[in-house]
C-alpha cells in the first residue's frame, strides 16, 4: 500500500515537472542554407498532392536544393497544420509551403508568430489583404487549361456528330428538346474555383460545338472515388456524352470507361493526372497545373533575397498550366487545334471569359463586381476587408488577376447545376 502511494506521488510530481521542463531549449537552429518546409495534404498516392510534390522536387533539383527539403505528409486542414508549420520553423526552415486551401487559416497563425519565416498557402485567398508581409498565396490560371481541355473534348464531340456515331437515332437521350448535345461535369463544391473551372471547360467545348448544354453534379468532397463515380454514372445515364471533372480522384473516368465498354457513347476529361491508366479508351486528356513554375520562382526569390509577391498567378504564358498528352481516342486534328488555342492564350488574343461568348439570364454581361474580402461566413463578417473590384474589363472577365484564387461566380446560360 505504501509503495502504491509513493508511486502515485512520484507520478504526480513527474507530471508537474513535465510542465516546467517544457520551457527549455528550442530547437531553432540557424540553417546555413535555404531550408524549405513542405506541408502536404496527402502523399504521392493522391493526384493533387502528387502534382505538388513533383513540382517542388523538380524546382529544387534545378536549383540544387534537393537536400534542403523537409516534408510533412498527410497533414489535415486542422490544427495539425499549425503544429507542422511551427515544427518546420523549429527545424530551421526559411520558407514553408502548404498545398491545400484549408491550410491557410493555420498557416497565417504561424505566420503571425514567426515574422522571419515566409509562409506560402497555395490556393489561398487573403495574403494580399491580411497585412502580413511574410504570408503569401499562389495559384495558376488553371481555367486556361480547362478551356483547352474543353476544346479537345469539343473536337471529339464534333467528330462523333460528323461521322454519325452520335445522332438522335443512335443515342436519343443525349439530345435535349432543342437538339442541343448534353455534356456533364463532376464538381467538388459549388465554389468560385469550381464554377470558374467548369465554365471555362464549357466555353472551350462550345467554341467547337456551338449547340451544347452542360449539367454539373456536385459531390461535396474534393476526393471521393465512389461519389465521383456515381455522379459520372448518373450524368451518363442522363445522356451526357462528355464528362469533365473538378474533383481529385479517378472515380469519374473509371465509371465512364465502364459505360463506354458497355456500349454507351461517353468520354472523359480528367484533372491533375493523365487518366489513360484508369480509362484507356474513354480518357481524352486532363487539365493540369505545372506547379514547378511557381515553386521555382519562390525558391529563387528566397535565394536572391528578393521579395516574393503576396499573390502570384500565371497561366500558359509562363507554362504554369497544361493539358496531359492527348489520348488515341482524341479526334484527328485535335493537336493542331490545341496548339492554335494555346498560342492564342499565350499571346493574349484569346480570353477565356470573353463576354461575347456567353450570356447570363439571356443578356450579355457588362459588369461584375467582386468583393475580395475574406469572410467569416459563420457570422457573415469580413475577417480581412478587401476591395470590391470590377472584374469585366476590355470585354472579358479578368479571372485571377486581382487575386490569384478564382472569383468567377457567374452562372452562365447553358449550364445547370444539380443541387445535392
Amino acid at each position, binding site marked *: 500500500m505504501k509503495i502504491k502511494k509513493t508511486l502515485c506521488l512520484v507520478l504526480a510530481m513527474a507530471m508537474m515537472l513535465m510542465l516546467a521542463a*517544457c520551457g*527549455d531549449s528550442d*530547437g531553432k537552429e540557424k540553417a546555413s542554407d535555404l531550408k524549405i518546409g513542405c506541408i502536404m495534404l496527402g502523399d504521392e498516392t493522391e493526384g493533387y498532392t502528387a502534382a505538388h510534390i513533383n513540382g517542388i522536387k523538380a524546382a529544387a533539383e534545378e536549383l540544387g536544393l534537393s537536400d534542403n527539403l523537409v516534408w510533412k505528409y498527410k497533414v489535415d486542414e486542422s*490544427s495539425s497544420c499549425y503544429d507542422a508549420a511551427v515544427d518546420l520553423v523549429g527545424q530551421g526552415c526559411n520558407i514553408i509551403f502548404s498545398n491545400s486551401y484549408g491550410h491557410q487559416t493555420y498557416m497565417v497563425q504561424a505566420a503571425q508568430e514567426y515574422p522571419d519565416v515566409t509562409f506560402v498557402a497555395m490556393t489561398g485567398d487573403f495574403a494580399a489583404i491580411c497585412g502580413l508581409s511574410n504570408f503569401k498565396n499562389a495559384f495558376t490560371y488553371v481555367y486556361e487549361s480547362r478551356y483547352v481541355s474543353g476544346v479537345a473534348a469539343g473536337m471529339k464531340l464534333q467528330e462523333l456528330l460528323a461521322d454519325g456515331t452520335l445522332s438522335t437515332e443512335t443515342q436519343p437521350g443525349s439530345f435535349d428538346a432543342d437538339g442541343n448535345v448534353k455534356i456533364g461535369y463532376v464538381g467538388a463544391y459549388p465554389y468560385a474555383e469550381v464554377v470558374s473551372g467548369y465554365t471555362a471547360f464549357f466555353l472551350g467545348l462550345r467554341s467547337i460545338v456551338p449547340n451544347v448544354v452542360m449539367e454539373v453534379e456536385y459531390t461535396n468532397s474534393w476526393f471521393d472515388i465512389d461519389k465521383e463515380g456515381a455522379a459520372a454514372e448518373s450524368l451518363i445515364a442522363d445522356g451526357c456524352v462528355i464528362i469533365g471533372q473538378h474533383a481529385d480522384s479517378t472515380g469519374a473516368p473509371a465509371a465512364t470507361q465502364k459505360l463506354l465498354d458497355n456500349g454507351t457513347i461517353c468520354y472523359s476529361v480528367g484533372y491533375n493526372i493523365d487518366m489513360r491508366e484508369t480509362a484507356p479508351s474513354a480518357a481524352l486528356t486532363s487539365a493540369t497545373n505545372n506547379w514547378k513554375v511557381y515553386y521555382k520562382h519562390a525558391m529563387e526569390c528566397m535565394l536572391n533575397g528578393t521579395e516574393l509577391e503576396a499573390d502570384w498567378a500565371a497561366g500558359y504564358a509562363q507554362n504554369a498550366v497544361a493539358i496531359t498528352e492527348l489520348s488515341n481516342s482524341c479526334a484527328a486534328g485535335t493537336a493542331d487545334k490545341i496548339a492554335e488555342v494555346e498560342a492564342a492564350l499565350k499571346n493574349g488574343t484569346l480570353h477565356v471569359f470573353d463576354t461575347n461568348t456567353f450570356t447570363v439570364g439571356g443578356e450579355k454581361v457588362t459588369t461584375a463586381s467582386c468583393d475580395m474580402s475574406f*469572410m467569416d461566413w*459563420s457570422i457573415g463578417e469580413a475577417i480581412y476587408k478587401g476591395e470590391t473590384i470590377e472584374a469585366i474589363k476590355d470585354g472579358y472577365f479578368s479571372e485571377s488577376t486581382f487575386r490569384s484564387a478564382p472569383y468567377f461566380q457567374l452562372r452562365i446560360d447553358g449550364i445547370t447545376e444539380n443541387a445535392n
Partner: protein
Amino acid sequence: MSNSQIKEPLMRVVKRDGARMREKVAARAAAILLALVLDALFIFFVTGQNPISVYGVMFQETFGTKSRCSWAMRDLVSLLCIGIALAPAFKMKFWNVGAEGQVLMGGLVTALIMVYFGNRLPMPVLFLVMLLTSVAIGAVWGLIPAFFKAKWKTNETLFTLMMNYVATSFVACAVNIMRGQASSLGKLNMGNRAGWFPSVFGQRYNINIIVVIILTFVMYFYLKYTKHGYEISVVGESENTARYAGINVAKVIMRTMAISGAISGLCGFLIVCGRDQTISTTTAGGNGFTAIIVAWLAKFNTFYMALIAFLLVFLQKGAAEIASAYGLNDYAASIITGIILFCILGSEFFINYKVIFRTGKGGKTA
C-alpha cells in the same frame, strides 16, 4: 481411475489472487521491455536502421524541442481527460464507448457559442457560458443511455456507440452551415480571437494541462474516498449486493454517467478553446476509444492513467515521425504501437493468472 492415469497437461493456467505490487510492476516492466525488443527487430528488418538510434529519433521527435514537448503534453492531457471521464463509468461496469460523441457534443456547443456570442459577451462570461453548456450537453449525452439502461435494461454498449454517430452527424451538419461559401471551416473567430484560451505561464496549452491535472486528483479522490465512489464499485461488483445494501442502483447509474459525460463534454470545451479553435468531426480524433484502453490498463487509477496516456502519446507521435523520417507509411507506425499494446495487455494476463508447468509429480504445485 487413479490419479496417476490422468495425463497431466504440459502447462496449465491458474487464477492468481492479488499479485503483489512488486510482481505487478515487474510484469509490466518486462512487457514494455519485450515490446521494445520486438519493435527493435521490426524496425531493423524494415528500415535496416540501428533500432537504438531510431528510438532516439522517436524521443527527439516527441520531446526534442520546446514546442514538441508542449504538444506532447497537450495531447497527453486530451487523452487523459477522456480516460478520467471514462473511469467512473467503467468502474461501475457500464461500458461507455460513447466518449467520442460526448466530447464532440461538448466541443460543438463550445464552438457554436464561440461563434455566435463571441462578439456579444465579455470574455469571462463567454468562457463561463461555454464551460457550463459544454459540461451540460456532455452530461445529457451520457445520461440518455444511462436512463434507458436504468429503466429498461437496454444495452449500453450499443446505445453509447450509436450516440457517437448522432453526435458526428450533428457536428458535420453544423460545420456545413458555419463554413458558408468557404470550402473549409478553418479557425473560428480569426478576427477577434474571442473564446481562444490565452497563454498562461508562457505556454499556450497550460490551461488545458492544469485543468486536467486538477481533474486527475479530484477523480482519484472521488473514486477512492467518497461515498459515491464506494457506491460505484459496489454497483460494479454486483447490482444485487448494491440493492441489498440499500443503494439506489438506477440513481447511481444515471449520476455516474452524467459525471462521465460531463467530463467528456468538458474535454470537448478544452479541445476547442485551448487546442483547435475550430470544430470538425475529427475533433475527438478517436481518443474517445483510445481512452478506453487507458482507463482499463490503469485499473481506473487516474495516476496510472497519466503514465499510460504518456506512453501512448509518445508511441503515436514517435511512431508517426519515424514512419515519415524513414519513408514508411502510417501502417508501420500502427504496427509499432500495436506491438507495445499487445505486450502490455499480455502482461495483464500474467498478473491475473499464473502458468504452472508439469513437474512430474501431479498436483504438487496446485
